[in-house]
């Protein structure tokens, strides 16, 4: 029999429990493994702007990105983010390849003054296989 480590929630038997929702940990399953996190600031004075982060993993990792498009650096939304009204639109997104994350903002018009976007990224070591 294969050896493994299983921690269940209180009230569940680690030897017999089969529902993964009742487990704290099970060595049979992979977890998300942190690689890097940080912030990239993108300033937009025209209709579009972009930034990058170089991860150099050599493969495309599992990643998640949030963006704060306000001035207080406190109201983050998960990318991608769209907003549109009668004045126009803005689209904020992030992509990845085997070396970088790309953070981009595209809007229908340039802002009256420069806008700053704070992209917060989490990169995991998990290879997406893409």
């Amino acid at each position, binding site marked *: 029999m294969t050896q493994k480590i299983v921690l269940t929630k209180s009230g569940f038997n680690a030897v017999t429990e089969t529902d993964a*929702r009742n487990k704290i940990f099970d060595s049979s399953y*992979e977890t998300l493994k942190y690689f890097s996190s940080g912030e990239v600031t993108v300033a937009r004075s025209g209709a579009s702007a972009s930034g990058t982060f170089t991860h150099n993993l050599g493969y495309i990792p599992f990643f998640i990105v949030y963006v704060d498009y306000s001035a207080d650096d406190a109201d983050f939304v998960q990318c*991608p983010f769209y907003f549109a009204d009668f004045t126009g639109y803005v689209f904020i997104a992030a*992509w*990845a390849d085997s070396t970088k994350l*790309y953070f*981009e903002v595209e809007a229908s018009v340039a802002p009256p003054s420069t806008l700053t976007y704070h992209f917060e990224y989490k990169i995991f070591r998990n290879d*997406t*296989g*893409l």
Partner: protein
Amino acid sequence: MAQQIRVSKLTKDALTATDPNDFILHSAYNSFFILASGVLTSQSVDADPKTFSVAHGLSYTPLVFAFAKYPDGYVSLPWEGQRTSTMLYTRRFLVQVDGTNVYFVFYQGGTGTYSVDIAYYIFNSSL
């Protein structure tokens, strides 16, 4: 005192640390782990929309996440389009899940048939 299993980060004391972020593993906190993952390669988006599905085999609706690699080679998050195209009227995809399947719904956005690779993750948490 209740027994616990704790593995702390380097330089953190597993006996005295109280911040959950100081632990690699703590038996008092649920961990987010991956029940299944996979890649669907060279899927043809020949309709608008075109839906691909994977049966997850669970008795509940799980939390899922997915990525898509468009023909330009960049990998997108759900509801993003292909990077090297204008962002309006472009290709997009979304992820849906129910008690039986995970669905990947792709839109052509007026660009015609194209091919995508999809990576998906199914987690141990239910919706």
